[in-house]
């Protein structure tokens, strides 16, 4: 099923004002309903290598797999959508590749990356994330954060040590508790959400949400959702206007129309004839 008529994708990535190179990496395929964003870390160019490996491995492998395997089909093992297994397996694969490269090549030692990946199918979206890259959703004028960071700060908020308001002033913003490629195995957080026409999904690296308030991000996505490309550029520009202390990446996905899988023989026949 080709989703390029059902979803629109715009993205933008920028090194920011302070950093000389961009350790973020993004990939998107509208026809497969696939978006991936990674924020690499590690010395020299290792961060770019890690995030680049993550997006490349996951995107190319999933593009291939989605060609032959309907993502909405139930997995005989657990009844979950097949997409979940595919995504989990490819994340593990990317983890192994990065981990092995880091082990075997001294210049890549210790590299790793955050990850957020989303697969759209059958009026649903499957979101996997690791670390502090985020997903937000705009639906009916409500803009909210969907993923919860795997970070020290989030744990402090959860345990009640810090309120979300105080968190803005914390010095410990940049400590993630999970990352891809630093251990032999990784546990991504994978969840499925329904999605409706009109929804706008935002994937971003912490360079955006550390520099721009959620309120301003929401305002931008909402007012500029008619021009997704401009919205993506505007978000990056706002992060840079506020200091641009980190690489900034955003991917916006707007659901244009219903993309449910035809069910029942009439609609299936109709779908087949289409």
């Amino acid at each position: 099923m080709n989703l390029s008529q059902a979803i629109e994708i715009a993205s933008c990535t920028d090194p920011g004002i302070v950093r000389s190179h961009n350790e973020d990496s993004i990939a998107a395929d509208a026809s497969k309903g696939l978006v991936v964003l990674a924020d690499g870390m590690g010395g020299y160019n290792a961060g770019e290598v890690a995030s680049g490996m993550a997006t490349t491995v996951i995107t190319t492998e999933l593009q291939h797999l989605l060609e032959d395997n309907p993502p909405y089909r139930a997995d005989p093992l657990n009844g979950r959508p097949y997409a979940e297994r595919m995504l989990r397996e490819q994340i593990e694969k990317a983890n192994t590749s990065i981990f092995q490269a880091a082990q075997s090549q001294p210049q890549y030692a210790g590299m790793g990356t955050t990850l957020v990946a989303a697969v759209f199918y059958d009026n649903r979206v499957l979101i996997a994330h690791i670390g502090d890259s985020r997903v937000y959703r705009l639906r009916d004028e409500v803009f909210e954060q969907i993923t919860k960071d795997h970070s020290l700060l989030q744990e402090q908020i959860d345990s009640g040590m810090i309120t979300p308001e105080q968190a803005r002033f914390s010095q410990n913003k940049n400590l993630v508790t999970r990352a891809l490629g630093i251990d032999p195995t990784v546990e991504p957080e994978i969840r499925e959400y329904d999605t409706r026409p009109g929804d706008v999904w935002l994937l971003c690296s912490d360079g955006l949400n550390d520099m721009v308030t959620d309120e301003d991000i929401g305002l931008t996505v909402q007012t500029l959702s008619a021009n997704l490309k401009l919205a993506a550029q505007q978000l990056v520009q706002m992060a840079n206007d506020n200091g641009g202390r980190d690489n900034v990446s955003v991917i916006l996905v707007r659901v244009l129309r219903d993309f449910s899988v035809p069910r029942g023989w009439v609609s299936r026949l109709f779908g087949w004839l289409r």
Partner: protein
Amino acid sequence: MAKLILSMDGLVLKEITLTKERTTIGRKPHNDIQIDNLAVSGEHAVIVTILNDSFLEDLGSTNGTLVNGQPIKKHFLQNADVIELGKYKLKYISDAPAAAKGQQDFEKTMVIRPGAMPKAGAPVAGPGPLQPMGTMSSSQGMPTMSPPPATPGSPAAGAPQPMPILNAQSQPQPAMASSQPMASGRVASIQILSGANAGKEMELTKALTTLGKPGVQVAVITRRPQGYFITHVEGANFPIVNGKSLDAQAHALNDHDVLELAGVKMEFFFKT
């Protein structure tokens, strides 16, 4: 390292560096900061320090603990906070600005092992095996498997680096800029010159303001440190500024520019 300056009646008595995870304050001698005064409880309060953040907690003291004049139970200390216990004052100085000198690598994202996480409420263990991602060239000696969680009190054996983390990210975080500080100092307005709404004025205080009719023609005015800019959002026609049609690029607005959108004329001007 952050520090506390103990004083009474404006007289500085002592300077204490917060090196420990838990720094206790009280009248009894076993406290890290002993204040021998009857207004201070035996175990009065504790400061828990996790990396660069310090939290003050009152331990159910008789006379209470004030921060900047307000009674608190638990408080996330900010630079220059003044803690009061009876007549004694403790000023909290976070050292972040000093340590940041010459630091280029601040704020790089790093991984902290889950096992190293101090649990809230529980006594805080050592900083644990933190793993700064940037400085790992000497990682041959690194454990490749996740190290076991550091148990409280035990020295974090096998921890890769003791605490490089303090330097690596001690740049003071500016309060996240909201739309106000990020925007240019002068506020501008739009006054509608023609059509049904002629005469109406709108202040451009937000980071973004859209103009026009959705589905027909929409433009957005963005408020940036450099000033105000207008950009085309949707519709077949582009906005017209001073009689000239724009292209898809953002266009800087000057005082008394006349804009035309969806057949409506309006004037952009700075408020005095």
